[in-house]
């Protein structure tokens, strides 16, 4: 088991009413799973993903990540935790515009104590694996959307995370590019990486081993 959410509530107060963003969510994720979160706009998919990724807080409930109680942890420890074990992939790629492909992939390593030569070897390995060696000196604006997302995934994978969180990774891509990215996720999952993705599309969800449907912050069903 990689993480477990227990009775998670998250809300905002608006005009005296409490609006629940997450309402009594329970979720257990085992290592090697590929989970898809689906639901309508505003159903709390991204919020759930952010809570899992520790980018966002929740108001009530318990969250255990690799036997650590996240709800008891201080901000700094939490940051250390996701820094170590989680990789993020964004719908809008979120590459850093001022950095080249090579540098973008290298960035997470800069925040961990890796030597220069180590970094070089790891990034080279990653470029090789994704077949983008030729593009390593280009800037994000010089790449197509699919290529940018490839770099985004490479960057998420560089520090060998146990878990990849992907927020509509194909949302900005055409269907062909989207297909490629999903194939890649499938492959990574086969290699043992745990993946949680948020998606709108049934066909993308089909790549996963399990789909969670959200509605108004509640888990509607939990099918395998």
């Amino acid at each position, binding site marked *: 088991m990689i993480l477990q959410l227990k009775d998670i509530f998250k809300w905002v107060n608006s005009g005296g009413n409490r609006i629940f963003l997450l309402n009594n969510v329970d979720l257990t994720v085992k290592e090697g799973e590929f989970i898809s979160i689906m639901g309508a706009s505003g159903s709390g998919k991204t919020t759930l993903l952010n809570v899992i990724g520790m*980018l966002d807080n929740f108001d009530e409930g318990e969250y255990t990540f690799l036997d650590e109680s996240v709800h008891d942890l201080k901000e700094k420890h939490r940051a250390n935790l996701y*820094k170590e074990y989680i990789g993020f992939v964004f719908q*809008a790629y979120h590459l850093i515009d001022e950095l080249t492909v090579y540098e973008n992939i290298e960035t*997470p390593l800069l925040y961990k104590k890796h030597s220069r030569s180590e970094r070089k070897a790891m990034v080279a390995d990653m470029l090789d694996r994704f077949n983008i060696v030729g593009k390593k000196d280009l800037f994000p604006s010089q790449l197509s959307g699919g290529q940018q997302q490839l770099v985004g995934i490479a960057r998420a994978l560089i520090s060998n995370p146990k878990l990849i969180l992907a927020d509509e990774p194909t949302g900005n891509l055409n269907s062909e590019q989207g297909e490629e990215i999903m194939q890649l996720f499938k492959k990574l999952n086969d290699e043992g990486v745990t993946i949680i993705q948020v998606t709108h599309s049934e066909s993308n969800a089909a790549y996963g081993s399990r789909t969670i449907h959200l509605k108004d912050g509640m888990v509607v069903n939990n099918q395998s």
Partner: protein
Amino acid sequence: MFKNNLKFALRVFSREKFFTAINIGGLALGFAVCILILGYVTFEFSYEDHIDNKANVYRVTTTRYVHDKKVFEGTKGPSILEQIVPVEIPNIEYATRAYYEPCLVRTDDKKYAKQKVYWVDKDFLKVFKGLLISGNPDTALDAPLKMVLTESRAYALFGNKDPIGKEVKVNEGMPFKVTGVVKDPPLNTHFKYEYLATLDTWVHYGWIQKKGNWHWNFSQNYISISNQGSKDKIQKALNNLSLLHVNPEKSEGKKIEFGLQPIKDIHLTSNYNDELEANGNLSQVYIIMGVGIAILIIVFINFINLSTTLSLRRSKDTGVRKTLGASALQLRIQYFIEAFLLNVTALIIATLIVLISSSFIESYFNISLSFKVFTNPLFWFLGILIFSICVLVVSFYPAFVLTSVAINTAIKGKIVKGRTSHAYVKQGLLVVQFCASIFLTIAAYVVYQQVDFMQNYDLGINTNQVLVLQAPTSLNAGGWRSYDEIAIKNDKYNVFRQQLIQNPALKEVASCYSIPGEEAELLRHSVKLKNSGEAIQTQVEERLIDENFFPLYEAKILAGENFKIDPTQQKIETIINEKTLKLLGFEHPEDAIGQEVFLENHLWKIRAVVADFHIKSLSDPIVPTFYANRHPFAFGHYLVKLSPQNLKTQMDFIESKWHTMYPEDPFLAHFSDSFFNEQYNQYKQFGNIFNALTILAILIANLGLLAMVSLTTVENLKAIAVRRVLGADNKAVFMLMSKGYIMLIIIAATIAIPLTYYFLMNWLNNFAYRIEIQSLVFVSAVLLILIVAVCNIMYYVLKVLKLNPAVIIREE
């Protein structure tokens, strides 16, 4: 890691070219101004550095009290001090008198007029150590007719030949032997000698007694004290001597005190009677330093505001980096590196600006800059430390804002805005900036007004087209009682005058000792009406003129008759001004005519009363003055009133007459009005510096404002677009964009105006004649700042109005 930081910083700069340029440009200008001000201040504080034992050299000043009220502060002291104090007061090593005279200096083939000759005693070179280049300090000035001159004067007179042992003639022809050469005086000394001649020469010619006395203050006195000596003890000992020898006068409530002035302090703190040159002004230096600091604050505020707003544009980048595992510290380091890079670049550009502009600035503002602090390692240590602290401080806030944005918000890539605490900080800083701009604008205008007021004030005399000639120095008489010698000079003058007056273009010719704008030749400290017998203890001036002086300067005689008689004989008649009239207690000018007055020991009969006029600058009040009808026995000036047309022809005519009449003396002429206005140089210089700094400060502040408006416009683009879709017209858009800034300016004005008023009242109190501050000045300054700000905003309003609001809304 560091390399990555650096690389990233450079790429950010190249993306935000416009704002980076404004940021660096503003910083560079500000730093350059601060470096230049540093140079100015260093120079002003570096006076007398060329003297080896500068810390131990003092000038003895004289302060007069009447019934414990200070009535006079002078740089001169009793002529006996030099002989008595080294003997009687322990720890005084040497003492010397110094008397300044602009003299005529000649060799067989060269002659130079108005040379800076100081008459000094034998120990002069021991009081002022380190000046002598060649010659023996023990014997160079130990006898009459010995002279030491500066390197450049020696070169002017003798070329490359060794000057030692050569003969030099002074004034009427006193033959001096050159016994030594001294260093040229630097610019930063109050004592700008060219020749040092022995005072014993005067004894040799019988003009003065060898032994000085306690009541004759004709010269400055300088002493050097030993390292064991304490200033306070010596000052006490001096005043004990004064009690013993001078203060028996105390019976009439008079008291004289001696003070010790460290020579290093003379330039900035001394503003006594008989200064050797117009000194600087400490508060002026402080004010300019203050403006420098204000500019630095404006520049840093620009930096903080621009950087903070820009950093929010980078919030997405920050958020992403956080998800990639960057800690807040790591992000801040990135930010500090960028801040340092910007500031260091600005500093380098500033240094270049200073290198290029410093000589122009020196000549334009008539100031000197000194950058010798740059050779001091301590300066570098402190400078780098302070610079780093400044950069850290000003970049701390933007860095803090940058990293404190929640990842969630940040990742959405939105610019964070609205009524956050950051907005308040930004507005607060802008208020400070507007305050500084308003303060400087008002102050600069009032300073300009005051200087202008002084220069154009009706003096009560007409100094226009009055040509001032230096009277023939070669005909100097030994003293004012050498009647035969004076008669020769006067006869020649009368012939010269007749020749000039025959030219119909020349309206009038007169003679006098000192001209308007110069100190009076004689100061008296006691006045007594013969009838009432009551002695008035105060300071009055005595000036020597002839019967043509008042007509030439168009001064009004209120009662009595102008001088008429032949001015060579000793006179007992005087003309007084209105201030003297009041002093003596007369109500009407007519009442004073024929009254007899003791001026110290001399009895005078009042012949006429002249209307008050300003003979010195408007920073000094008009002083009670007695005019005596005497031809200048030595030096002095001849005055010629010209017609306004063809000045050149008239001057050529005068010069040709001069050369035939006075073949020994060079023709030296200047205009009376421009000489008079030189008194305002100090204020003009201050006004010019102040104005230039103000313009720069406003320019820099405006640069920042421009950038800020541009950034907030981007932030508010959607709000504006929505309002336009809902039907807001152009005026409403303008109001929406500008009302925030207008509020800030109003707040700033309420803070700045009282401060400015207080500061200006203080400054104006330095002047005996001053303008009143008009409220209109405050209103127009605020309006000016407002208009400039509104123009900035207008530019962006017009830009926004060109955009299609529908497109903006869709993009969001």
